[in-house]
């Protein structure tokens, strides 16, 4: 999976997982930061879908069918964009 271009990164639709809205589905665009390998091992990989389930000091999200709790500073390292609403 190729990384998004700089232009894409700067697009308005990109936000960190910690800022993302609860209850919505997102697509992971890229993971960057000191803990990115750890995050990828837990399933936070580029192009995968993630649903944010709860906010707080630690937020809860669902990725690859697993619920994962992670601290907000970790969630800051995951950049997501909202999934296009279903066509129907």
């Amino acid at each position, binding site marked *: *999976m190729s990384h998004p271009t700089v232009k894409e990164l700067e697009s308005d639709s990109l936000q960190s997982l910690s800022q993302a809205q609860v209850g919505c*589905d997102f697509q992971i665009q890229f993971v960057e930061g*000191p*803990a990115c*390998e*750890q*995050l*990828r*091992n*837990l*399933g936070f*990989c580029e*192009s*995968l*879908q993630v*649903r944010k*389930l*709860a906010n*707080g*000091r*630690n937020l*809860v999200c*669902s990725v*690859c*069918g*697993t*619920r*994962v*709790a*992670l*601290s907000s*500073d*970790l969630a800051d390292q995951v950049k997501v964009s909202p999934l296009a609403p279903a066509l129907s």
Partner: protein
Amino acid sequence: MEDSTDLVALAGNPNSGKTTLFNALTGSAAKVGNYAGVTVDIKRGETRTPHGAVLEIIDLPGTYSLEGGSPDQQIAREVLSGKHDRVPRPSLVICVLDASNLERHLQLALEVIELEIPIVIALNMVDLAEKTGIRLDPVKLAEELGVPVVPMQADKGKGIVELKQAMRHPFPAAPDEIGWEKGDAESRRAFGLSTSDLSARRPTAHTSTLSDKLDRVLLHPVWGWFFFIGIFFALFWSIFSWAGIPMGWIESAQEFLIGKVEGLMSEGDFRDLITQGILGGVGAVVIFLPQILMLFFFIGLLESSGYMSRAAFLMDGFMAKVGLSGKAFLPLLSSFACAIPGVMATRTIDSAKERLVTIFVAPWMSCSARLPVYLLLVPMLLGGREGGAKQALFFLGIYVLGTLTAFAVARILRGRLGPDEVESHFMLELPPYRLPQWNYIFRHVLDRGWAFLRKAGTTILGIMILLWAATTYPKLDSEDPGEVLSHTIVGRISDTIEPLVKPMGFDGRTGTAILTSFAAREVFVGSMAQLFQIEESDDEDETRGRIRDRLAAETWADGKPMFTMPAVLALLIFYIYALQCLPTSAVVAREAGSWKWAVGQFVFMTVFAAVAALLVYQVGTFFSS
């Protein structure tokens, strides 16, 4: 059979069901739980293939990746790459993957394939995956990876035979070609994602599962805490109110045996040894077996259902205030049952310093061995009978006090140790809620019960016999029991230590009972029964009730009551804080990597306990006089 000792390693992500599979293959009852990090050490067992060949199976701690990680993950990495000093390189690896979470679990399998060891994929939990709507295609997966794939449900025993078939000689060779660039994490990850998309296609719509709905309540900032406190209160309440019935049975059996021995033997020292020393002393401890079994049962229930990680999640904010993380909560919680598995479980903590601090404070979580002491003393404070909500609340208070002190000390210690070299963050998998695996819970509870009885039959029995001898010899020809006792060895020890323990409100005999309990805490109750010469009688009255009555009537030489409220409180406080468990110190020394930590911990906790007891007694006496 030259190949009879082939080594087979079970590897996989945390909570993928490796230990369940290990138990199913080897017929053992290793501890399983529904949270990441139950297995922190290598477990060994044996199994037979359908052809009769014996294979040695090792269960490795769960790991997400072979690169980086906490101590338990390092073990897995070293074994698989043949760098472990005690374990040879395995001849075959069974990689256990959770079918409902293939995107993530497959990454580890790909890393293992790169090591060029023969590998079989155990595609576990296929039922769960299908329930969530995933369309599984194990054949496609096997084709893509070039290794055998066995779909299975280890907890129901499905697929075990097929797996054993795949484990026969010759072991499946590592694939000649791999579909990604070896050693390149990015290429490997992309391959893993496309393969799982092909062989385990997810439904496009995100469905809200039962676990999602439960989590909405159980992880709620307000309701979550409501349930958290409710669950733990119910746990303590049921332990203290339901155990009464089986305890009565044990008591009747004990009284029956004493009656029998007294009927069969003529009066003399030997009969006293059996009735007072062995049956009286050991019986006073064995009576707590039901409570201990219930504590292990409830903790097993919490672990198996998946609630444990929710509790860790809730506690993380609180734990952060004392410099620990939610991950430290799991070892601390299991220390309520016993500090030894608790200290071992600290291996899942990534930060080395946080781990040391957690090890240091873990014995302050009131373990099951303290229960007998609490059960003896608490009704003395509240007056009257055992059981009821008031006592359950008091018990909860005892556990909270131990925990809060542990947190306070952790905070101070964590501040002194300084920050970690590598920053670590809170990250925890919240597994789906599952129905408990009853057979494992019951086997685990029985194992613990048996361990407790073994301890009662060895350590506690030994101490009881020694104590009986020390309270009997040397003999003195006198009618006054007090004079006789003070002539014996224990009498002399008591006289020596009385000045030391008197400021805490204890006399020499209580001091001696405390001394004997440094070998094992539970001994205290039996020692008190012997030292205060509690007569065993044939009626149905409760022995503990008699110990309490006897203690309540006990006075100092000047006629003042001995076991006043401050004195009993001081005794209770001493037992909450003192570290009186040699096996714990041995495990701490091993896990912390130095005896200095174990000795320091022992000295610190003992001094702390003594000072706290002293303060409680002195302040309490000052205010009550």
